[in-house]
């Protein structure tokens, strides 16, 4: 405990910001899985993404922070929101899983979490921290990433377009209303 307090004292405002963001992230993440109303879940997820973007900024990954907001919070979550609105899922129903299964799930998930944390905290899993000498602060800058993406990673980058084509064809094929189908 005293160790922890000592650690607390060494922190600068950035450190406190990290702790605050962490707390916010975990709380909003829990909001996602516990909210009764799907709309609240979506909103909590968006909040989580914002917190995560904050973390990215702290980690000097500004470009990804921006992309995270634009792609995830902006595009993907809007899609979720649209679907929920269209399907009219505001009712707080159909959550009839028995408490037993819920408790069992939480216990198993919790066990996994405790195990993982114990493993990660163990001495033998510590990674050598990169020396400060060769540190490259521009790692997360768009210029750096762009070079890498269009250099070494050009092949997967191009092939990701195949994935988008599949997704596009598939989403249209599955989501299209056939003659005689209901609208929603």
């Amino acid at each position, binding site marked *: 405990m005293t160790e922890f307090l000592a650690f607390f004292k060494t922190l600068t405002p950035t450190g406190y910001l990290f702790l605050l963001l962490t707390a916010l992230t975990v709380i909003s993440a829990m909001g996602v899985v516990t909210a009764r109303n799907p709309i609240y879940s979506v909103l909590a997820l968006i909040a989580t993404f914002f917190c995560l973007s904050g973390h990215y900024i702290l980690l000097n990954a500004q470009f990804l922070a921006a992309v995270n907001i634009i792609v995830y919070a902006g595009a993907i979550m809007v899609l979720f929101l649209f679907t929920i609105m269209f399907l009219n899922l505001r009712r707080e129903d159909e959550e009839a899983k028995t408490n037993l299964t819920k408790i069992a799930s939480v216990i198993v998930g919790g066990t996994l979490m405790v195990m993982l944390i114990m493993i990660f905290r163990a001495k033998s*899993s510590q990674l050598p921290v990169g020396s400060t000498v060769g540190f490259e602060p521009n790692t997360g800058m768009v210029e750096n990433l762009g070079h890498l993406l269009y250099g070494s990673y050009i092949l997967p980058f191009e092939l990701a377009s195949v994935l988008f084509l599949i997704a596009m064809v598939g989403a249209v*094929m599955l989501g299209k209303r056939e003659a005689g189908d209901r609208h929603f």
Partner: protein
Amino acid sequence: MFPIVLLSVFAVVLLFLGFLKSRSVLLPATLLFLVAALVANFLDWNKTYLYFNSMLRTDNLSMVFTAIVLLSSFLVVALSGSFEDDEAAQPAEYYAIILFSLVGAIMMIGYENLVMLFVGVEILSVAMYILTGSDKRNLRSNEAALKYFLMGAFATGIMLFGMALLYGASGSFTLAGIASYASHAQQGLSLIFYVGLLMLLVGLLFKVSAAPFHFWTPDVYDGAPTIFTAYMSTVVKTAGFAALLHLLAASFTYVYSFWGIILAVVTAITLIAGNVTAVYQNSFKRMMAYSSISHAGYLLIGLAALSAQSRQAIVFYSLAYSIATISAFGVLMLVTRQRGMQTLSSNPLSNESFDAFNGLAKQNPLLGLAMATSMLSLAGIPLTAGFWGKFYMFSTAVERGQIWLLVVAVLMSAVGIYYYFRVIIAMYFRDGATEPIRISPVFRYVLVAAIILTIGLGVAPGLLQGLF
């Protein structure tokens, strides 16, 4: 590399062909494209290349796997003629998605970087989610698609967590980088590395439906349209095993002592779960789903033993398994359609049960022979390709000294014979009032080719060995 380019272009072309009024060009065009890709595949024969900053590797092993995948999809596509009669079907989209998904499969076969593996797995999986749900008005197909999608996405999450941890520990996404980190296993690796390894393994084991991560398989295979079940159970499985084999052989051989026993136990559980559960099934299609789990188990033997022969064993086994499975599903499709027309029953369950095969061999000797050959091959009876597949697999286990696993596998293959022979008994020894089923010429060629390949590889298994 060439097949990837060709397939991507061809798939787009196919989408445009879909605008044409006539649907009848689609099937020949797709078959032509697949043959072209197959030919292009062998352009690099006997050369080893690393393309695009070591993203993709082509060597003889990867080309053989690619050829198996392309051959399987050729056979499956050839059997898919029924789309022409079906109003609701959208063959252009189906074929395009199949060709696109083959790009993913080839990425999984030839990847040298985890990014490629990840994108490849996703291309293949997303395509499969779509194809599973392609029978849009059928509730069973819908349910299968949702199950497959949710569980597949979950498994992807686990796989990604593993990749991230591996990156964290080794500082690299390339297989070579991970291998060079793992080669210091004597000095002790970070536990993070091991956690990452396990999670990545779990993610991939899910994709090849190894127990206890197999639960999605029976439901999805059962609910998906039969033609796509045939595709999933062959192409996806082959690609998955190629990916696992390459991953374990290239990166993780140094830490075999860590994962070897886990994989061996998973193998045993898979064998037992697949074979034993298949015994009680009444639906042929569902039986085939469990049988595909059990065959994943046999294939895993080669991975759990990871020896010099594993490559050869897995190549041979996947080829034998793919051919037999496709022809079995092909016969099933014909029978189901025929019975469906005769009885006018809308209940698909009764059309896919074992009883649907009663007396088949008397009216349709070719169908009976094709089905019997593939069942014998799946059961591993000598002089069929399946026997040698099992033989190779078992000898890898022997070489590793995993005798207990061998005993389990041999016992379970005996259980397997029970349910495979149910079909043969139904076809040859039961009476069923049926008129002959009309077989289109393409179907006939495919079935005959499958019979010849199965028996040919069973008589002279050395033929394939000359290839690499």
